[in-house]
């Protein structure tokens, strides 16, 4: 069966200047978008234009370029709102990255609402960013963590979900695993949380760049994601939250912008979303994120998902045909249950040694624990090699990965 994609990836590639470069004298094969995506000209140009023409601090400036910069920043907030279908821009808070978004929630909502013995339900496939902030609260407050286990093929095992969620105050899980690619049934989880009166937090770092996101349909209370994984720059992330919850939360970082009034004896907070945005924001990065969302929206996020589904099917099929039992690709076997993230074991080679040989062939993959050490332990490995795709990858990239793996196999042949 021929695999088809709604995207013309070759044309899309021309928008990404980095993909035109060579490494070690060979055209670069970039397969690490789960770590960070490449940036299209539209994003680079938007940030450059800001610095070259309207660079000024936002809010409170009455001169023309300050007003323009403010308008651009707030326009980007509206683009984010529309992209995730939030009901109001008041619910869209700019942070440094998804990690900061999650820390904000733990420090603000968590410290205001959780006391000793309260239960937070996480899963075994969480990124450290959705584990460590909770551990910090365990140390400070004596809250308890529970963990949703995984099935053998790397999906959440929801058999005992009712028992696990019983008595929990918080459910915080990823929508898509950065190691296994698993796409979780978020709605099932958020429904279960709501039924017991728990709030639900979704780590959308991997899902938001690759699948359509409708926060009103998710049934969640909060969503965290990063800009740099969705074609935007580093240094900008988003926290979406339901307005009534955000309104009750105490501020996270204090300073300028987040206040309405400051007196010698105290302060009052600014309105949402600025209440959580102390200090000068990452203006160029926010504008860049807005440009990234424009770019993705013009292509259509559903088309991106369809393209990556095609690549997923091609990757699973091609690698297992070429290498048989010599390769183990972790995670779900069915493309509809997973995104384009492929952690694998190849022969008995260590991931570092694999990626070193792959680098020689200009193939960029990640090797390590992917900030998911509890998951690595569960999988019984110290590290994996991980290839991940985005809208600019092609089946030729996967063939190049296969060729480079073959070379690694012969180099280390014992």
């Amino acid at each position, binding site marked *: 069966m021929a695999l088809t994609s709604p995207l013309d990836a070759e044309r899309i590639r021309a928008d990404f200047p980095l993909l035109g470069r060579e490494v*070690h*004298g060979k055209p670069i094969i970039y397969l690490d978008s789960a770590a960070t995506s490449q940036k299209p000209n539209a994003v680079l140009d938007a940030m450059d234009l800001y610095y070259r023409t309207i660079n000024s601090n936002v809010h409170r400036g009455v001169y023309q370029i300050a007003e323009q910069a403010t308008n651009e920043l707030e326009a980007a907030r509206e683009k984010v709102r529309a992209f995730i279908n939030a009901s109001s821009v008041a619910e869209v808070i700019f942070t440094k990255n998804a990690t900061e978004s999650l820390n904000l929630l733990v420090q603000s909502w968590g410290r205001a609402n959780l006391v000793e013995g309260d239960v937070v339900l996480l899963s075994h496939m969480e990124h450290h960013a959705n584990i460590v902030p909770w551990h910090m609260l365990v140390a400070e407050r004596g809250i308890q963590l529970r963990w949703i286990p995984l099935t053998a093929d790397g999906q959440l095992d929801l058999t005992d979900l009712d028992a696990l969620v019983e008595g929990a105050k918080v459910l915080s899980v990823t929508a898509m695993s950065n190691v296994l690619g698993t796409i979780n049934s978020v709605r099932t989880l958020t429904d279960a949380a709501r039924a017991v009166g728990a709030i639900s937090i979704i780590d959308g770092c991997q899902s938001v760049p690759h699948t359509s996101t409708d926060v009103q349909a998710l049934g969640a209370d909060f969503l965290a994601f990063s800009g740099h994984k969705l074609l935007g720059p580093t240094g900008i992330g988003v926290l979406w939250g339901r307005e009534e919850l955000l309104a009750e939360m105490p501020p996270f970082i204090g300073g300028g912008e987040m206040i309405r009034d400051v007196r010698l004896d105290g302060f009052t907070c600014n309105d949402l979303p600025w209440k959580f945005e102390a200090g000068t924001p990452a203006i160029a990065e926010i504008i860049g994120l807005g440009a990234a969302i424009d770019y993705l929206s013009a292509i259509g996020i559903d088309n991106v998902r369809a393209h990556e589904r095609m690549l997923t099917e091609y990757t699973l099929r091609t690698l297992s045909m070429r290498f048989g039992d010599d390769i183990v690709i972790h995670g779900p076997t069915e493309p509809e249950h997973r995104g384009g993230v492929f952690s694998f074991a190849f022969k008995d080679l*260590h*991931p*570092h*040694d694999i990626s*070193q*040989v792959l680098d*020689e062939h200009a193939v960029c993959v990640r*090797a*390590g*624990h992917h900030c998911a*050490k509890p998951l*690595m332990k569960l999988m019984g490995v*110290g*590290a994996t090699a991980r290839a991940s795709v985005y809208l600019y990858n092609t089946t030729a990239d996967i063939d190049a990965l296969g060729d480079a793996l073959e070379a690694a196999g012969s*180099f*280390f042949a*014992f």
Partner: protein
Amino acid sequence: MPGLEDLYREIILDHYRNPRNRGELESPPAQRVEGFNPLCGDEIVVYLELDDDERISDIRIGGQGCSISQSSASMMSAAVKGHTVAEVGDLTRAFKGMMSIHESSLGGESTEPEDLPDVKLGDLEALRGVVKFPVRIKCATLAWNTLAQAIDEASA
């Protein structure tokens, strides 16, 4: 451009395939110390026994990791066994010197620090190519840092 052969010398691959002193020692009496490379998840366990003259009477290596970290640990175990703590200190400084000389002179001329001990590195010389791959230096030095900690704790 440094090639793979600069990194993966035959002797390194030999130690990777046939690691020396692999295993465990009963602890106590042996000192057991774990070393981690938080960047990649590699893990080295050093089991160390010192005799009354502060000589390494026995050493075993456990853990898992890439060919560089495992072969470095294997070569290290062979190089330090039977030597005194003072001798091992000199060897460690010489080895780290070999690893870091290049680190500090990237883009500049190579300088030989004068206070480096005059020690024969033997097989360990094979790891010299690692300095051309800076992200792998931590793989090569993991075992040595773990050994230093084990000696500290055993001598304490």
